[in-house]
């Protein structure tokens, strides 16, 4: 009974929590409900991941309407793994935010749950219009979370971010209208099935798919569309920015999914050349940005962009091995990015007026922050022995046989060196360069919630390196399942669907 409804439970849980939190504005109540729901979500998505590892496609038809007509949720290894990553990140960030950040404005907790709902839904849905709806839930919550805490910087960043994403939504709808007009369906598996049949306007369908990919790369932060990202992420409050670390990944996973299921069989050359070139340009841009960053928060934003650029090298390769390596890289870079944002907040609180700017300031009083920074920086700069190194190594070795391998290797290695240099220089400022102050700053205690959240996120670097084998095996199985699109189509539509006539 409960197994049959497993795919929708990760959506119902945050929804129920958000509704419950809206009943009462009492902060301890909202915190308790939020932490309880997110903790349960971690267990639930963990169970879903174990369940999905049998390789079966779990299709949940809402209202029991069969697939091309109703909306379906589809759980495979990739979707389940991504929900687990979202839940773990969400729990740790919420733990951090519950130590005081949520007092800075109204309605933080319900919005946080809605944001989780949107992200989880975007990973789980098997319908393109439903994907649009979940994107909008995610974005609407993120608009308000971005403004949480107030201040002119956040309002300014918010206006550009909202306008840009509203235009993105309009383009998304145009793409969906074109797809529906040419193919007569918006169910992803059905789109893949119809694309393989003759009898539709190829150039229009191609245009629609290109527009769809353009919207996804806007969310992911591909170069000409990525100027908003460092600006927005460094303006947001630290816990919000840490949660946003998963949002670029929603765009990337959406491209991977659409590419593997629908584009690879029907129009395999759609992503060729341009996506890889622009992704490389994004990496260079982000590495230069990291070098020029004046604050740790801004540096973290550039690192998020760097990992997004690296991930965007993947869809055009359409290879199981590359995707497997990239999924490992995705997991560790998301957690490292979030760790960097939260750490920047703690470090800023210790340094008084200088905050997290890279200049000489009062020494850090909490010594463990220095060690945490070192571990985080080692992970983010992809130095051995932590998970950043393993992820990058796997990605580089899987890209060996790609067409533009020498260029990709050069750009990835050089950008890695630049990031390492930037982190080393900035670490010196934060840890060693002191300016004598008249009297030591009176600091508020860090608190166990913040310390636990940051320590666990930072510890993800060493932990994921220790667990590299099982995790890499899982991502390899997930990538193999992703790149067998026939299974997805028959799994969603049923075996008889492939024989049905094409829709007008």
């Amino acid at each position: 009974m409960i197994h049959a409804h497993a795919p929708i439970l990760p959506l119902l849980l945050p929804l129920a929590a958000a509704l419950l939190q809206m009943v009462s504005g009492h902060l301890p109540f909202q915190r308790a409900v939020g932490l309880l729901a997110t903790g349960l979500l971690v267990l639930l998505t963990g169970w879903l991941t174990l369940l999905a590892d049998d390789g079966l496609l779990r299709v949940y038809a809402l209202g029991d309407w069969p697939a091309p007509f109703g909306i379906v949720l589809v759980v495979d290894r990739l979707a389940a793994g991504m929900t687990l990553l979202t839940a773990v990140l969400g729990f740790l960030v919420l733990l951090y935010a519950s130590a005081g950040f949520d007092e800075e404005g109204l309605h933080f907790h319900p919005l946080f749950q809605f944001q989780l709902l949107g992200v989880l839904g975007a990973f789980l849905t098997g319908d393109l219009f439903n994907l649009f709806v979940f994107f909008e839930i995610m974005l609407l919550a993120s608009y308000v979370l971005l403004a949480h805490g107030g201040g002119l910087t956040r309002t300014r960043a918010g206006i550009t971010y909202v306008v840009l994403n509203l235009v993105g939504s309009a383009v998304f709808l145009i793409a969906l209208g074109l797809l529906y007009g040419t193919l007569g369906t918006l169910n992803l598996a059905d789109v893949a099935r119809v694309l393989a049949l003759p009898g539709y306007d190829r150039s229009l369908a191609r245009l629609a798919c290109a527009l769809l990919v353009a919207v996804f790369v806007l969310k992911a932060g591909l170069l000409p569309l990525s100027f908003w990202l460092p600006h927005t992420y460094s303006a947001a409050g630290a816990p919000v920015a840490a949660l946003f670390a998963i949002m670029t990944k929603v765009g990337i996973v959406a491209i991977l999914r659409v590419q593997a299921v629908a584009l690879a069989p029907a129009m395999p050359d759609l992503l060729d050349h341009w996506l890889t070139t622009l992704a490389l340009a994004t990496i260079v841009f982000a590495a230069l940005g990291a070098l020029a960053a004046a604050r740790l928060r801004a540096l973290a934003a550039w690192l998020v962009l760097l990992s997004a650029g690296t991930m965007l090298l993947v869809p055009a390769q359409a290879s199981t091995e590359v995707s497997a390596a990239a999924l490992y890289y995705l997991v560790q870079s998301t957690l490292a990015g979030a760790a960097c944002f939260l750490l920047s907040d703690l470090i800023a609180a210790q340094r008084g007026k200088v905050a997290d700017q890279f200049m000489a300031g009062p020494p850090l009083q909490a010594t463990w922050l220095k060690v945490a920074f070192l571990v985080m920086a080692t992970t983010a700069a992809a130095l051995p022995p932590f998970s950043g190194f393993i992820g990058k190594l796997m990605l580089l070795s899987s890209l060996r046989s790609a067409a533009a391998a020498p260029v990709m290797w050069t750009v990835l290695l050089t950008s890695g060196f630049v990031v390492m240099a930037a982190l080393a220089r900035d670490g010196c400022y934060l840890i060693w360069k002191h300016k004598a102050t008249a009297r030591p700053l009176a600091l508020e205690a860090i608190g166990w919630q913040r310390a636990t959240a940051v320590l666990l996120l930072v510890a993800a670097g060493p932990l994921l390196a220790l667990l590299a084998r099982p995790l890499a095996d899982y991502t390899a199985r997930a990538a193999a399942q992703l790149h067998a699109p026939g299974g997805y189509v028959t799994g969603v539509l049923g075996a008889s669907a492939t024989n049905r006539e094409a829709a007008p």
Partner: protein
Amino acid sequence: MEVLLSIAIGVLTACGVFLILRSRTFPVLLGLTLLSYAVNLFLFASGRLRIDAPPLIRAGASYADPLPQALVLTAIVIGFGMTAYLAILALRGLSESGADHVDARQE
């Protein structure tokens, strides 16, 4: 009818894009509204244009595709909410910085 609708969509999109590229928040807001009108009409047209046909399947009678109408309804609701939020945000930017420029700075 097709020509009329395509001209309407084209004009709305062109005006919308022009207004979005302005530097003050109010024209940008208007531009986004126009763009969302254009997109809604476009979505509506993706189910093919039919006159005097209800979106219900009845034996013997012609009917219009109901799905784009449902999609348009969803898109209208979402677009409306987003525009309202942007208006509030723009007002807040105006009150905080004293200017209604998109990249308002403290003077």
